[in-house]
């Protein structure tokens, strides 16, 4: 059994491309060319050169001594927080901007939640001198103000999405509308392993550099490529997909995904998609989706703008559905506590999204010899106002 994508763009029952005709030619062109373009030697060379010299890859795999002592196992942190712009998101935008150039596009649009994907997109657009429009929920514009400033300074236009919950889902709707309006010269850089095929696979491939490096680094450090656990937070799922990609078919490597439980799974203020969701279609893919019995999408809630999404990438939906991966639902408060604990134990302030992954350590019991890799998907600079407010309140 393979957990990778099939010829038709599906992971098991999940995936596909449920898109209006207005997007068809763009998506079809992408689907027909992405593997060819990205496997050309010249593309690979450019991609890897930028990842190395511009992004700062390989990102370290850091043995967290004090954290390991605290949780009585062997904890390694994959330091995506050290990437240029501060999260894993840039791996994907570097890939997509090169692809967009190959496709002859001159204008870039993107959606963003936490702003990290928006910043990563604005960054590569500045680098390649392309016009850049980023859609962002107006709620997120407020709670991730620092990233809004960064995007503007990088020359991008940030357009507020005012519909629905005014968060990531709605920003995605607006970006799709923009693409429908501007199909010829525009490429849409989706920021996670969501959306219609081929996006989930394309983004996962660009992010798979994470697990490629983990394999080499673990081998160097402990003599074997496979950890016992990989833990990652899941919004759309791109950092998780990247961290597990090369381990999909290694059944001795267990995957644990941290979802945002918000105020609690049962409270009605949650973004715990895999627990609260059923199969359904969002943004062009069949996946697990928070929805009512009429298929209306339920507005999610999480303190973390990057996890505040009612769907999940189809690859991950399939892994969860087939019990290849387990999920832990982490509340706002648990994530907050985990962020402070990491800061005080290892001197690393994680993104609020990432903090959800660290909260898993409080949940699961590991053996002393278990090798646990946590994907440190981003740094917390953007979340300082939230952290400080919480600290003052407590």
């Amino acid at each position, binding site marked *: 059994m393979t957990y990778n994508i099939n010829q038709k763009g599906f992971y098991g029952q999940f995936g*596909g*491309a*449920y*898109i*209006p*005709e*207005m997007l*068809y*030619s*763009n998506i079809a062109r992408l689907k027909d060319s992405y593997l060819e373009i990205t496997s050309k030697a010249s593309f690979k060379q450019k991609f890897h050169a930028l990842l190395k010299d511009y992004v700062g890859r390989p990102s370290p795999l850091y043995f967290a001594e004090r954290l390991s002592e605290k949780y009585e196992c062997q904890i390694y942190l994959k330091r995506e927080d050290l990437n240029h712009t501060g999260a894993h998101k840039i791996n994907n935008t570097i890939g997509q901007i090169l692809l967009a150039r190959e496709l002859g596009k001159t204008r870039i649009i993107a959606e963003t939640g936490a702003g990290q994907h928006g910043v990563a997109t604005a960054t590569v657009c500045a680098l390649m001198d392309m016009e850049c429009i980023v859609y962002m929920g107006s709620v997120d514009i407020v709670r991730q103000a620092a990233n809004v400033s960064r995007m503007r300074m990088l020359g991008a236009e940030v357009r507020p999405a005012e*519909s*629905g919950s005014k968060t990531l*889902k709605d920003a995605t*709707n607006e970006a*799709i*509308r923009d693409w*429908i*309006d*501007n*199909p*010829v010269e525009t490429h849409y850089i989706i920021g996670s392993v969501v959306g219609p095929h081929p996006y989930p696979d394309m983004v996962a491939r660009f992010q798979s550099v994470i697990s490629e490096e983990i394999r080499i680094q673990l081998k160097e450090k402990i003599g074997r490529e496979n950890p016992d656990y990989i833990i990652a937070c899941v919004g759309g799922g791109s950092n998780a997909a990247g961290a597990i990609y090369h381990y999909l078919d290694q059944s001795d490597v267990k995957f644990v995904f941290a979802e945002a439980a918000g105020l609690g799974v049962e409270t009605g203020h949650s973004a715990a998609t895999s627990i609260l969701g*059923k*199969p*359904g*279609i*969002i*943004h*062009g893919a069949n996946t697990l*989706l928070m*929805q009512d*019995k*009429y*298929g*209306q*999408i339920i507005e999610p809630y999480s303190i973390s703008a990057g996890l505040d999404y009612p769907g999940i990438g189809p690859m991950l939906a399939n892994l969860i559905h087939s019990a290849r991966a387990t999920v832990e639902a982490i509340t706002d408060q648990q994530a907050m506590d985990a962020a402070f604990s990491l800061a005080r134990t290892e001197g690393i302030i994680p993104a609020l999204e990432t903090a959800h992954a660290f909260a898993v350590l409080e949940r699961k019991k590991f053996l002393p010899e278990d090798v646990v890799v946590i994907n440190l998907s981003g740094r917390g600079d953007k979340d300082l106002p939230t952290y400080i407010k919480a600290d003052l309140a407590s």
Partner: protein
Amino acid sequence: MNRLQKLFDTKQGDILNIYAPAGYPKLEDTMSIITELDRLGVDIIELGMPYSDPMADGKTIQDSSQIALENGMNLDVLFQQLSTLRENTQVPVVLMGYFNQLVQYGLERFLDSCVKVGVDGLILPDLPMEIYSNQFQALFEERDLSMSFLVTPETSDARCQTAAQLSTGFLYVVSSSSITGKSGNLGEDQISYFEKIQSLLPDTNKLIGFGIHDQASYENACEYANGAIIGSAFIRALTGDKELSSNIEEFITSIRP
């Protein structure tokens, strides 16, 4: 043969299709709007099933959908409201919505309900032709329900032909690569696109939609197709400063004086 097909059998030009969201402006307005449009001689009514995330639609439709949902509209209510549809009118009615609504309601159950209340066809912009033809076409045909697919200036000739073939009501010709709700006059590019579609698919029933908003654009569209679809402009008219029926009458007579 359903009412939609019958219509095209008897009328080949100047067809006016008006889009209205169900349950908008008030929950109970659905049937009144249908009745009023029928009385004013509108040829087809495209009833929007309000959806939380209508990605193929523009702001006007999205906002009205949102209000309809807040009014309490859902598929159970809608089929309830439409249960008297055919007591009052024989105007062809098609439902427009998003595929996930059907999936969650149960696809066959949904199609059966359509048949029961007398709906004639469907438009599901995010259901790809391939999936439809592979998995669902038979279910529609069994029930004599029409289906309409969209083509755009970006759609290849081959794909236009497939769309035409699969469309049993009419082919939905998107006037420009842009979201519903934009309005402007026809440009050269659009005209040559319409001419291409015309010469490629001379025998297909075609309605032009997106951006049609007044008499001039309506008449213009009718030159290149069997008729046109008006959505956003009609929605905006619904909340004009008069009573609902006067707002409707005023708008329709402005299109077809």
